[in-house]
């Protein structure tokens, strides 16, 4: 089975992340760029399926040139090849445009029957792109998945949301998005790092991919960021003096926050 994994390079969540003043898009220079952690789990799940059932794993990303680092990491974990769409015209694309572009790229991967992605990126956090891709492709969608099983042409999944667990079943082709519980991603091995250098990476512009410039980019986006403000500094915590009722007060606080 040929599997496509969607990966995204994001600003390191430990860096200070900013939007540019000019157009409220991500200020890529302000933070270190890393492969989104949830994508490592998506790659891991694809590799597990490949190891059990054979086939090929193709990594797809759209992003600037430095997104190559994210691709290399996925390849060094064991993915077979990659497609990298890099074009200045993509700057500022919204979730819908992104989904359309990625769906187009999925269509270029021969024999692809399954797309695996993270459930949401740590930067945009829309959490909608995998579902949109499924809609555009007309494939089944199984999102927010914590457990996945592929049996012949059937996909079974446990979907986890705030309200509970749903058991899903669909026929291939399908788009799956995974959450943090899906697996523990492997480290790239030394051999994998060396092998990754020789794996094919197709770097495409939007013209190469047959995408019209009028369909992408900030000027044509379906959503616009009108205003952005830095998050306020953290306020001082609430201090509880223990006069014998400290435990109760802490418990009340936690209940108030719906933490217990």
């Amino acid at each position: 089975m040929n599997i496509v994994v969607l990966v995204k390079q994001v600003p390191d969540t430990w860096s200070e992340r900013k939007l540019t003043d000019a157009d409220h898009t991500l200020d890529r220079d302000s933070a270190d760029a890393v492969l989104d952690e949830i994508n490592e789990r998506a790659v891991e799940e694809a590799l597990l399926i490949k190891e059990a059932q054979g086939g090929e794993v193709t990594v797809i990303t759209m992003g600037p040139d430095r997104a190559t680092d994210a691709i290399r990491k996925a390849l060094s974990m064991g993915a077979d090849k990659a497609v990298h769409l890099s074009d200045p015209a993509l700057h500022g694309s919204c979730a819908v445009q992104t989904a359309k572009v990625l769906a187009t790229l999925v269509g270029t991967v021969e024999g692809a029957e399954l797309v695996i992605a993270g459930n949401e990126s740590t930067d945009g956090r829309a959490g909608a792109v995998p579902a949109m891709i499924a809609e555009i492709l007309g494939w089944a969608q199984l999102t927010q998945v914590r457990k996945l099983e592929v049996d012949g042409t059937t996909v079974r999944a446990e979907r986890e949301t705030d309200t509970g667990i749903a058991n899903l079943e669909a026929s291939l082709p399908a788009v799956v998005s995974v959450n943090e519980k899906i697996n523990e991603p492997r480290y790239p091995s030394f051999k994998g790092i060396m092998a990754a250098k020789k794996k094919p990476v197709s770097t495409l512009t939007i013209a190469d991919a047959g995408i019209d410039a009028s369909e992408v980019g900030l000027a044509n986006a379906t959503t616009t960021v009108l205003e952005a403000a830095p998050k306020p500094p953290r306020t001082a915590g609430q201090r509880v003096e223990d006069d014998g009722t400290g435990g109760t007060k802490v418990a009340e606080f936690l209940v108030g926050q719906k933490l217990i």
Partner: protein
Amino acid sequence: MPASLIMSRRDLDFLLHEWLDVVSLTSRPYYAEHSRETFDAVLDLAEQMATKHFATHNRRADAHEPHVGPDGRVVLVPEVAAALEAFTGAGLLASDFDEDLGGMQLPAVVSRALHVWFQAANVGTSSYPFLTMANARLLVAHGSPELVDTWVRPMVRGRFFGTMCLSEPQAGSSLADITTRAEPRADGTYRLTGNKTWISGGDHELSENIVHLVLAKVPGGPPGVKGISLFVVPKFLLDENGDPGERNDVVLAGLNHKMGYRGTTNALLNFGEGVHRPGGQAGAVGFLVGEENQGLAQMFHMMNEARVGVGLGATALGYTGHLHSVQYARTRVQGRPIGAKDPATPQVPLIEHPDVRRMLLAQKSYVEGGLALGLYCAKLGDDQRTAATPEERAAAGLLLDVLTPVAKSWPSQWCLEANSLAIQVHGGYGYTRDHDVEQMYRDNRLNPIHEGTHGIQALDLLGRKVVMRDGAGLRLLLDTVAATTARAAALDGEPAEFAARLDAVFARIGATTRRLHGTGDPRLALANATPYLEAVGHAVVAWTWLEQLLAAHGRTGAFYEGKRAAARYFFRWELPGTGPQLDLLDSLDTTLLDAAPEVF
């Protein structure tokens, strides 16, 4: 990831790329498969794995030191095995071995840089693979193809781990006095009997087999060190498939209980006492490495690499302590500045106090200087193996020979001091087991002792290295330093000022060396070898700081300002200390020779 308290990737990148230009090594055929990309990827991998699998059980392995269970087997906290499985599974143990052995041919300088992550995160657990790598490298250098196939391949894959068995209860630094015997047998094997102690990784259940490299004497051989031979003595002999089979006659007599480094088992081993009878006979079966009576020279091949590794291990512990104390000094508020003592004003972080900055700058200059020295020596090892011409390879080997005692001892002394200062910055908290810095100090206290004590290194430097080949090694060191000071002198300002100071110190070192050996009395010349080692050490590290200053020249930003501040500290506060040491040496002081045993 958050800024690490284990190591500084930024500093490693500076030293590897902005100073040592390690990517240039990839133009050599041996490293041609590598690139900046692979170097970055393995350092990323090391940081992730050290953070997730090694640092996480460092304290637990210290608190629950290895012990012998009721069944006679060594018990370790389970996280050690899990971490090592991840380490070997990723192929890190094979990093700088030849491709045909399953290795990755990574330059040693990059390999060392990735390994400091593990040494800093958890020196106890990282010892097992490091000992195995040293063991395997020795066999590759001196063993027959059969020995390499049989023992090195499983070690490089992480199936077998290795040890070095040198010391005996009655013979530690004095290897001439070992008594372990190796009796030849008709089938070409030997049977060993004797006791070995201080064997790190000497027994455990972490690997399928343990490959001991054992120094022993074959009866009838020359006396002293010239009669020492080297043997492979496995815990389990191998069956016809190369898998561990019959138990060899080497058994655990007990574990040492140490001040630090507790995650590493340290064993007393008995060979040939008949507890097991391989082939129906008592005696530990051993396989000769190379030829008889070459054992010490073979072992020193490994020891020299191991000494640079010890220096980097000491640096790694000093480095992580420094990072911990900087973080503490930034966040812990205490007291108010001189001249602003109004109790109504808020207290300031510790880092605002000049004396705390003194302790932080001292640590920074020690640990970053030690790291520079260790990586420089590792790159000399790469040059010795792969530089373009025989002359370049020989020069690299010669300079590495001279620098090895310094690269071992200087960080062992001063990065331990960095750990002491890290405790001091933490105040009383630093003296408790609630903060990691106390364990770092205990762990690091081993480094001036093992792989040749501080005093042995001093004798090696003054008694052998600076006089070998009629002083060629020392001359090469002086020329190397002079090339740096010439570049620095052309820049004016601090680089030129420091270059002049460094030139003066090295001129004195040259003169002092001639004076000591000019006495014609080795006893007098070597009596004060330790201050000689320490003065040369400070001068060499000052040279690495001048090199770093040049690499940072013209660059702006907090990182480079930090390099300049640490260089300034080292030249103004530390290097002048060499003056009194050289004065003492020049005086041919006999205080130590004169202090007879009765005065104590």
